[in-house]
């Protein structure tokens, strides 16, 4: 059937967007909007992961990856009419690279060692870096580097919560929003600069997209199945069968980043000993978890990062389920079984706690299952569940949460640094990050490796560094990777030509709806 333009797609989102400052676009609901209303300099091919032109028609990089020059497509405008020229792009990157203190705008996590920009001519812009930044080119393709109008960039961070304040050059424009509830997007009729992979280059086919926040899984899925919506995000594995049974489609987009894992905070003395961490890794029956809770869309993790991520090395052999080994390691570490079936050392029980991670699919169920499995080797795991605010605070305190349920999606080797580096997401809670509760734990060796990944200019060396990081993390038992996390969406039979960018955010640019 031929593409029929028109119609508004009803999209059920799980969470409301928080802030549309593009560097905050890592949060899926934020990214889900930014992907429709902003364009980036480059586009990352979802099959090859190669970087392709978009707003930049071409670029060059110097030898040591410290100077990047981009040539811009002519005739591109923001939806407020201002041109997307070198000056505007330079302002965008100055802000994302260095942040803007006065406006509370933080720097982007994907732009490292940024120094300054230079406007060569209206369609050429150059960026300088203090240290090699090989990841920058890919960084121009991610959602966090969406280009916005200078008018938007003059707003303080607070005002970016209102979607109407974000003026991009994308195929859709925000028409209205009800905070926490819904966002209405309409197609831009004069749009003509879509990324190459998604040709043709005309305006979007849909008349608009209506994003409705339905936090409750059962309602989102129920309403979708009942035909009350066209598209829905965050479909859990147990609902997949229901959806396909109704003739609708499941889209499982890979996120290509750091796998869905349970990571340790070695600052907590209970998990400071690598033997304990490795024991718990081997006490985890990951295939059983996948069988019980997930579907084939959730591949078993074979390393810290996903198999389709750059630099992946297969560590499946190090991730076996081996309760005997686990028991031995624990015994060696001094945690012996007591009469009541729990392990203790000097009278202290090996009792750990972890917070349910709301964004992760079935986090709670997975952790409950994990607790059941660890109980068999005598380790107690308590699943904490509380308000988002409390969760953030608890997760910054290794004494409260010796474990953390984590996942970071991004299709670049840099992603591993984003996850583990102290001044980035710092999932291990090393000293030097945001938390004031970390006493001593810091791993200079790991951090050095991460620094190299972020700054090595030669792609081959970078991938080799990445391999060493994976090996290092798994050898020290910092992380128990569970599965490669997909973003799972449901689309009704009416929805055609769905695309997803490299880490699984929906792109509605070419999508169309069949007439009912």
């Amino acid at each position, binding site marked *: 059937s031929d593409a029929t333009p028109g119609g508004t797609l*009803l999209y*059920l989102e799980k969470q*409301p967007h*928080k*802030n549309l400052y593009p560097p*905050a676009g*890592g*949060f899926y609901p934020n990214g889900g909007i930014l992907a429709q209303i902003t364009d980036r300099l480059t586009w990352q091919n979802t099959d090859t992961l190669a970087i392709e032109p978009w707003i930049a028609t071409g670029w060059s990089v110097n030898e040591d990856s410290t100077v990047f020059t981009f040539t811009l497509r002519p005739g591109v405008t923001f939806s407020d009419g201002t041109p997307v020229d070198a000056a505007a792009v330079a302002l965008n990157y100055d802000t994302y690279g260095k*942040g803007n*203190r006065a406006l*509370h705008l*933080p720097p982007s*996590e994907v732009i490292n060692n940024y120094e300054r920009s230079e406007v060569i001519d209206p369609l050429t812009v150059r960026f300088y870096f203090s240290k090699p930044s090989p990841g920058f080119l890919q960084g121009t393709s991610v959602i966090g580097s969406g280009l916005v109008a200078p008018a938007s960039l003059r707003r303080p*961070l*607070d*005002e*970016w*919560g*209102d979607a109407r304040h974000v003026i991009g050059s994308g195929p859709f424009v925000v028409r209205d929003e*009800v*905070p*926490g*509830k*819904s966002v209405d997007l309409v197609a831009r009729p004069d749009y003509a600069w879509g990324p190459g992979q998604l040709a043709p280059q005309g305006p979007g086919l849909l008349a608009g997209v*209506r994003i*409705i*926040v*339905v*936090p*409750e899984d*059962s*309602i*989102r899925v*129920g*309403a979708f*199945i*009942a*035909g*009350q*919506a066209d598209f829905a995000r965050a479909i859990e594995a147990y609902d997949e069968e229901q959806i396909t049974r109704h003739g609708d489609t499941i889209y499982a987009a890979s996120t290509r980043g750091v796998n869905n894992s349970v990571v340790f905070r070695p600052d907590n003395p209970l998990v400071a000993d690598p033997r304990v961490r490795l024991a718990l890794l081997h006490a985890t029956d990951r295939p059983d978890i996948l069988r019980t809770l997930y579907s084939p869309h959730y591949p078993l993790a074979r390393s810290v990062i996903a198999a389709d991520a750059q630099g992946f090395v297969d560590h499946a052999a190090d991730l076996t389920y081996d309760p005997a080994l686990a028991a031995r390691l624990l015994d060696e570490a001094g945690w012996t079984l007591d009469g009541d079936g729990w392990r203790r050392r000097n009278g202290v029980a090996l009792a750990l706690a972890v917070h349910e991670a709301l964004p992760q699919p079935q986090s709670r169920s997975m952790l409950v299952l994990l607790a059941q499995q660890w109980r068999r080797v005598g380790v107690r795991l308590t699943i904490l569940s509380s*308000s*988002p*605010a*409390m969760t*953030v*605070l608890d*997760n*910054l305190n290794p004494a409260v949460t010796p474990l953390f349920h984590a996942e970071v999606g991004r299709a670049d080797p840099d992603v591993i640094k*984003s996850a583990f580096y102290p*001044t*980035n*997401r*710092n*999932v291990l809670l090393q000293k030097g*990050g*945001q938390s*004031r509760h970390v006493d001593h734990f810091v791993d200079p060796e790991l951090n050095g490796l991460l620094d190299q990944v972020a700054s090595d200019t030669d792609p081959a060396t970078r991938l080799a560094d990445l391999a060493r990081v994976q090996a290092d993390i798994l050898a020290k038992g910092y992380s128990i990777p569970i599965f490669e996390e997909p973003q799972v969406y449901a689309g009704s039979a009416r929805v055609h030509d769905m695309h997803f960018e490299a880490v699984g955010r929906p792109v509605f640019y070419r999508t169309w709806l069949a007439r009912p």
Partner: protein
Amino acid sequence: MTRYILSRAAQALLVLWGAFTLSFVLLQVMPGDAVLIKFQDPELGLSPQQISDIRASYGADESAFVQYAHVLGRTLAGQLGYSIETGVPVSRMLHAAYPTTLRLAVVSFGGAIALATVFATAALLAPLRPLRAGLRLVPGLASGIPVFWLEIVAIQLVSFHWKLVPVVGVSGWMAVLLPGLALAIPISAPLTQVFLSAAERVMAQPFIDVLRARGASPLRILYAHVLPNALPPTLTISGLVFGEILAGAVVTETVFGLDGLGQLAQQAVANQDVAVLQAIILISVAGFVVINFTVDALHPLIDPRIRRTQGGGAA
């Protein structure tokens, strides 16, 4: 009379101020503050220095007393501040949220009144004594139904299974129809209970016997005499019902994903979004105060015996 109104108004202001202060204290002693929580979110990847800069710019590191003075002053000036979580002015969020809750309240209250009326009539006039006794147990049972459970089941059956009303992508009255009716059931329970016990007390009074001795029918006695007499005690629990509707709105809006004040409150609690929470508490307290005031004002209209004592005349 003016003196009475003035003193009631002063009392109301005192309650408002007290609730405001109480909520401030409660929110103040919470661990961390919204600014910290929001910007410590690892997704933002800020350094501790940046965070403390941001906090200072929000005034979050001032002493509690200074903050209290600031917040009180701002509130008195009619400004409710910004939501830290969404960055949107609180007044805008309230403005967007109140219609849903108001509609929900109207539907559920109206539904509850209708239910209570039908039910009380049945429980008072049903032909057999055991039947009446049995019916009288029902409100107690209904008040034990967890709202959220009732609503989950209602959505599943009414919306998804029978496809009678959609629950997403609808707006206006349609959006609150199912949630409002579901909420009406537990709301009607205390109304029915209070009305029934008041009605029973009225029915035990001699004048009811006198009416029967004049040949009045039970239905006529109920509507023309028992109802107006049993109304005042029922009205006095309006404040309570209002609170129940608000609490019910928190649950209902969460379950149905409605964008009302209840949802806002629940999210504000979750994110410790102080400005929003305080605004909502102020609104609910103001609502409570206004409703109790109105009920007091209505009493003499319904019960003529109160009129003269309130008029300040001789007893």
